[in-house]
């Protein structure tokens, strides 16, 4: 965890034993280990979703021929079962499913009658736009709060701390409806549902960004304050750095490190938030697909989306760890 920035935190944190001679390949080995772990996680996720969704009562063939409670004929149900291999025993279905997964085939959506990869491909753009924009806005807000609290004295610290806690605690659906009531229904400034162009992106992005900025802000403020009271700041001052030089050039960089570490977590939070936000603001995306897939018992689409999110999550966390190693020289030192 990259949040441990106090100098005392490091000397003890050396798994693998100090003093053992190290090769120049730890980076590669680290990457291979990560990769192996990632494959394991994806397999576990795929397996758990595959079996969990089958615990829902009802016949998946019904989902294919028109949803639960369909009055489909025997022939229609039999045809659907044969089409999707549901007439096979469960272990066979599971193995077939893993086999397809290895070939990158996520199967066919029951409800949309389209390949899951195609459905995800069509919808991932909307969610990524939303997630990236929200992450950017959240970072800007968090940074602003951190800077203000560090430079604005005791009162500013108390106010920002309160703001961050409130922001982090607000549920997405409440925030979304409140923003719609204020900015669409009452003021009429912004469209309540997605419209072409950036205007329709404003409310959904703010809804996702505010709670996230609360979390990021708290972490950034902590590390900024810690950094400002660290010996290296004193050293910088001793070299003749001015106030703003110390602040912008040295301390602020440290505040960024925990934020990077949180990116993996933030990604997960953004995807779960996207389920709510995309539904309320009627935006096409992965979150909304996931919700309707769960409601319609669309097994391939649910498993496909969950696996894709898991894969992206693994990539994001690997990249953030990698970024940590690049930004924070101490982590590389440790590896030598």
């Amino acid at each position, binding site marked *: 965890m990259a949040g441990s920035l106090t100098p005392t935190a490091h000397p003890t944190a050396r798994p693998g034993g100090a003093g053992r001679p190290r090769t120049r390949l730890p980076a590669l080995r680290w990457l291979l280990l990560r990769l192996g772990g990632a494959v394991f996680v994806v397999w576990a996720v795929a397996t758990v979703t595959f079996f969990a969704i089958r615990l829902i009562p009802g016949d998946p063939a019904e989902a294919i021929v028109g949803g*639960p409670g369909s009055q489909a004929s025997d022939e229609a149900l039999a045809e659907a079962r044969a089409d999707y291999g549901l007439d096979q025993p469960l272990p066979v279905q599971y193995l077939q499913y893993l086999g397809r997964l290895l070939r990158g085939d996520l199967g066919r959506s029951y409800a949309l009658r389209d390949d899951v990869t195609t459905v995800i491909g069509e919808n991932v753009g909307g969610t990524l736009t939303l997630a990236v924009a929200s992450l950017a806005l959240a970072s800007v807000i968090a940074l602003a709060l951190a800077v203000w609290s560090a430079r604005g004295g005791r009162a500013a610290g108390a106010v920002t701390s309160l703001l961050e806690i409130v922001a982090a605690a607000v549920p997405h659906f409440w925030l979304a409806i409140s923003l719609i009531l204020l900015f669409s229904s009452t003021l009429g400034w912004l469209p*309540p*549902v997605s419209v072409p162009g950036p205007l329709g992106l404003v409310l959904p992005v703010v809804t996702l960004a505010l709670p996230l900025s609360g979390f990021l802000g708290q972490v950034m403020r902590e590390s900024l304050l810690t950094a400002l009271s660290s010996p290296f700041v004193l050293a910088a001052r001793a070299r003749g750095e001015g106030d703003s030089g110390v602040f912008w050039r040295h301390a602020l960089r440290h505040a960024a490190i925990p934020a990077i570490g949180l990116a993996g977590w933030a990604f997960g939070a953004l995807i779960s938030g996207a389920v709510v936000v995309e539904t309320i603001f009627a935006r096409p995306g992965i979150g909304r697909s996931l919700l309707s897939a769960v409601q319609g018992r669309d097994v391939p689409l649910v498993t496909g989306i969950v696996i894709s999110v898991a894969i992206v999550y693994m990539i994001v966390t690997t990249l953030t760890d990698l970024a940590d190693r690049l930004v924070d020289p101490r982590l590389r030192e440790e590896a030598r």
Partner: protein
Amino acid sequence: MHRRLTSLLATTAAAALLVGCTAEATPASGDPVTGGTLVYATGDAEPTCLDPHVGGNYPQALIATQYLESLVSKDTDGEVIPWLADSWQVSDDGLSWEFTLKEGVTFTDGTPLTSAAVAANVAHVQDPATASSTGYLALAKVTGVEEVDELTARITLSSPDSGLLDSLSQTWLAIQSPTALERTQEENCEAPVGTGPFMVEAWDRQESVTLSRNDDYSSPPADAAHTGAAYLDGIEWRFIPDSASRYAALQSGTVDVIDNVQPDTIVAAEDDDAIDHIDAPRPGASNRLELNSSVTPFDDILVREAFIRSANVDDAVSSLFFGTAERSYSALSSVETLGVSDESLFEYDPDAANDLLDEAGWTGRDADGYRTKDGETLALTFPVSTNQSIPAEQSLFEQLQSTAAETGFRVDLEPLDLASWYAALGENDYDLVSAPYTKVGADVLRILFDTSGTVPAPSGYFANHAQVKDPEVDALLAQASATSDAGERAELYAEVQQRVLEGFYILPLYDQQNHYLHSTDVQGMRALPTVSTPALYDAWLGR
């Protein structure tokens, strides 16, 4: 006896009706203006297939009404009127129906409307590969279609079906281009081809379906307000699942029409001069609680009546629906002309309820004050489908739970997702249930109350949740279905309803709610009197 309805009769009726919707018609002011795109926002689920033959649910009917048309329609008086068929006649034995099609009608892909098209559509619905459920059931008695000549199709039946015209008026049995039906199901689901005033241009999943005007349109139903092409250039059909954002979108002018309007929103919109309200209850059954008469305690008619007398429905409806829903005392929707209503059977009377339970032997009381008999508590399992019951209805059930508790009933509400809810019904693990059923015509009584309705379909589905197994009812239903005499049919259905109501098998609540709100810019919009879906052919934008 040969019955013949001519288009002449119906057109005169239509002229008088002009814009008819079941309750609050939109007054058309000024002259219609051509042009503009109407934005319609639906709160129903996005269809997985735009062809309502496939599966066959309400969301599909909503949108398909814009581009597909049926052989017949109905007017606001419940009379069957010409649409794609100009006239029809039934044989003396009731086993064959001859439909004469409108001349010169073409599908939007250029295919002419002929008897072959009717045959192809019936075959399509009956093909297991289509996986039709609603349309398939409605055509259960249809054995085939003969092409008598180019414009005459003869539908043959295995036994007489007095509800055939009602069934054929439904969007789930709309007529599509036979050429288009030959494509793969994927292609046909993506863009079905009909004769309607609009046609499917593009489907942007999760976002909208773009519909454009059919400039060659020539087949409005007999009760339409004008002839020729539609006024609107097109319709943008949007999917906005959240009720609050849908209403905000209407208020802000982002959309022009919304459906699935909740009671609180209807009340809020009443104060808004820029918004009009269309109340269009769905046909078929009323929304009602069904009392499972196949298991204790509701196998005892005394307990059934006691429950009905113990439930204070009126107060709950008025407090939770703010006057937007009218109390029903019938098994059928108020739009069904053959519905029988009997208020006296459903009066809230806790004293009578207590006496009935005493009489039925539920005289003991447990620690919580619920009644007991032979050590067993008077408990009722009530699975609630959170997909099918709006929040106000779920609150209503909670209020009924508390008024019934005063008489000593313990009602266990179990909110369930759709799949689990159907599973609970399939396992006969319920005492009370509320299940909507939309169908045109009184024949819905056969589905809901015939003994055969207690036998689950292959998928586990059954519709007779009250589990009425009354040979007398079955016989009356069979007679009603077979008779070709309208008066006799009405009497038979009345008798069925009386038996069901007096048997205390159901507790009617209100019509199946179906409300539209639209901007006052939208003129001439109405709900189709068949399945109450929005008809936008006569609509125009006055902004």
